[in-house]
Each structure stands twice: as C-alpha cells, then as structure tokens.
C-alpha cells in the first residue's frame, strides 16, 4: 500500500502534498484518469503524527471539522465528504470525535458527459483543518491535481478500498429517538443488530458527547444519551454512527415528540 502511495506521489505534481505541522495532507485520485460521464472519487489523505488528530463532521466539545473548498472547471461538481467512522477521543471531562494515524476522506466528483478524452483537468482543493494533540494548530493547504481525461477506466488505488471499508455501512434498521427530561433515548430494532459498543451523533447541539449507556432487551438496542446543554428543539430526525469494534453503521431515526 505504501509503495502504491509512493508511486502515486511520483506521478502527482508536488502541490498535491503539503506537509503542515503534525499532519501531512495530500489530494489523491482513485483512478489515474477521469472518465467522461462517470463519477470520479478524489480524497483528502491525512497522515497524522502520533498522538495528533483532526476532527469528524461533529468534532464534539471542541475542535473543527475538516473542510474542503473545491475549484473545479465548469460542469464538474463535488459532493459531500464521506466521513469514515471516527474514534472517540477522551480528554477527561471533554469528548472529541476524530481521526489519528492515516485516514482518507473520499469525495465524489461528477465528471460531465461531454468532457473530452485526451485533455487534462485542473482540480484545486483548499483544505482547512484543525490538528491537535493537547494544543491545537489550524491548518490551511491549497492542493492541486491535474488529471487526464480518458475514455477508459484504469487501475484503482487500493487506498480508496480501505477508505470505503471505513465508511459507516448503510442500514435498514428501524428505530426512534425520544426526549425524556434531560435524556435522549435512541431505540434501534432489527433482527441483525450487531453488539454496539459506541455511538456518535452527527447532529450538533442534541446530545452530551459522553459515551451513551448501551443496553439490549429483546432485540432492541437502547442508547441513552444525556441531553446537550445547548439543546433547543428536537430535530425531525437524528443521524448517528454506531460502532461494533472496527465496524460501523450509519442510522437515521425519526425524533418522536411523545414521551
């Protein structure tokens, strides 16, 4: 995998990699060429120094999620960042959600059908992030990729296979979220529920970020969170990522207004 990455880096121009303090940020392409009319996956690859981390879409009690601003030619469109399941970073009384070590944040790019094979596409991405250990350092990096357009799809980077495996899997579980005084109770029902060990709410200002109390009863898994101090009104639905060991799933449940 490292050899493949090194090969990719040889092919890519130097501005695709930025070695900021404590995290190296680079822009990777899943394929060596873009294909007209086909979604291409690019990714922000973050390599953290040991003990340093960047943040998930909901960073928790402090921190900032990584943001990407794209500069794309007309007709091209970037989708949202696919967030691999985060780690819980316990800082005593405060909780954060983020990434250590190596992580790839994949982003889908729509390539227009009338793009011309044989030409080169210039793609810019400005990444803004906060990298922290105890202290925090804001980072801003401008990255570019020049990719050829080809009629034929070529060999894929294994980096993206790994990233896809780390994205939370979609589920068909049923469930709901309810507000009970200063607790938020999420119930999940399904025949194939895994042994959930942790859960992270995507929406901010809903739950306190401490690990929820998790219990199982007759095929229903209940996640009991304390309410956020910044809770105002219940949203129509709640998005969560639940984890069982290394595997993770994304869940959306309606917020039920009756107790």
């Amino acid at each position, binding site marked *: 995998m490292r050899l493949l990455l090194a090969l990719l880096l040889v092919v890519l121009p130097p501005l695709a990699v930025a070695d900021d303090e404590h995290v190296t940020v680079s822009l990777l392409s899943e394929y060596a060429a873009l294909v007209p009319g086909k979604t291409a996956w690019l990714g922000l690859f973050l390599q953290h120094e040991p003990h340093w981390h960047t943040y998930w879409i909901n960073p928790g*009690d*402090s*921190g*900032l999620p990584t943001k990407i601003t794209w500069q794309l030619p007309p007709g091209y469109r970037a989708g949202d960042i696919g967030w691999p399941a985060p780690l819980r970073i316990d*800082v*005593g*009384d*405060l909780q*954060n959600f983020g990434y250590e070590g190596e992580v790839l944040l994949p982003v889908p790019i729509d390539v227009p059908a009338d793009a011309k094979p044989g030409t080169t596409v210039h793609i810019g991405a400005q990444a*803004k992030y*906060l990298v*922290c250990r*105890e*202290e*925090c*350092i*804001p980072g801003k990096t401008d990255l570019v990729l020049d990719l050829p357009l080809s009629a034929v799809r070529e060999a894929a980077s294994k980096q993206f296979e790994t990233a896809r495996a780390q994205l939370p899997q979609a589920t068909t579980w049923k469930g709901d979220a309810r507000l*009970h005084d200063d*607790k938020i*109770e999420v119930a999940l029902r399904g025949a194939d529920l895994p042994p959930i060990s942790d859960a992270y709410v995507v929406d*901010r*200002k809903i739950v*306190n970020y*401490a690990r929820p*109390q998790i*219990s199982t*009863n007759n095929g229903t898994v*209940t996640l*009991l969170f*304390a309410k956020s*101090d*910044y809770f*105002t009104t219940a949203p129509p639905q709640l998005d969560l990522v639940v984890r069982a060991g290394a595997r993770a799933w994304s869940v959306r449940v309606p917020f039920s207004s009756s107790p």
Partner: protein
Amino acid sequence: MKRILFALLLTFILAAPALSKVSVGQPAPDFTLTDSNGKSRSLSEFKGKIVVLEWNNPECPFVGKHYGSGNMQRQQADATAAGVIWLTINSSATGKQGDIDGAAANAYIAKVGAKQSAYLLDPTGRVGHLYGARTTPHMFVIDKAGVLRYMGGIDSIKSTDQDDIAKATQYIPQVLAELGAGKPVSVATAEPYGCGVKYGS
C-alpha cells in the same frame, strides 16, 4: 410503563457529565478566585451589575482569532464603558497549555491591550467545571439580578479565520444591547467553539 421504569433505572446508573450544568434563566453560581494582581474576587461582589465571563487561553488559536483581530478588546472596552463587569477566566491546569501566573497574565493583558475588569486564575478548574466551560473562548452573561441570560460561543461562525468575524453575529454585544433595552434575549444559547479547556487529568 416498562419503558419508563427502565429509563428511570438507567437514570440512576448513568453517571452525570463531569462538567456542571448551569442553565439560562437560573441563578449563576457564586465563586471566588484570585485575580492577576493577587486580589480575591467573587462574583457576588458585582451584584447589581451585568457580568460577562470569558474563558481564555492565550495560546489557543481561537482566542488568537478574537484578540489578534481586536474583536475581544473592542467588546471588552465597549462593555466596561457601559458599566458592565467583564471577567476573563483562565482554567488551564498547572503545567498545561495556557497556564499562567498573575505576572504573566498582566503581561498578556498589556501586550494585547485587553480591557477586562479583571483576569481571574482558576488552575484547579473548579470554576470552569462549575460553569461547564468547555472551550476557549466560552462566554456567559449574567444580569443585574444574578441570573444567567446567555451562555455559549462568542459568535456564529466557527473558525479560526479573522475574516469571519465581520460576517458573524457577535453574541455578547447583542445580548448586552437587549438587556440594556429591557428586551428579551433573542439568542440565549449558541454552541461554543474553540480549543478544549485544558483541565488537569
């Protein structure tokens, strides 16, 4: 019914979050801390005045955003000129980032031209925990009757970019203007953002 009993049982088992919960509309808890000049200060000594609490860590880039731009100093100056008491509180634990003594705090104040009423040192984190301070900056506004009227972020755009200050809603001047005019507080809570407060482990 079973569901309610179950939830009640778990309520007793579930550990309360380690940071205390103050609530808008409730009395702000009293506290006593030593200021940067070695003087003991209490919230209760300011009864009858509006008090702003500002959690600070001189080394945090989010604090740097608001001081580097002059935003915090301007808000401090405007508030104190109008008779508001502005207390800056540092809850960094001894040996952690941002931990400073009184002399260093005074040097910092002079260097950045800060205009608070007092800079209070909370190295045990006792008052930070009491108020549930989780980031620097993290802001609280207490009215003349000692009731908490605002808690949360300093403004509406969560970033380290000074350019965002002019585009954001600055919550403290807004709250102070509404309190001064006897109007309801339109934004009583906003999620705080910043570096985590460096409590001891």
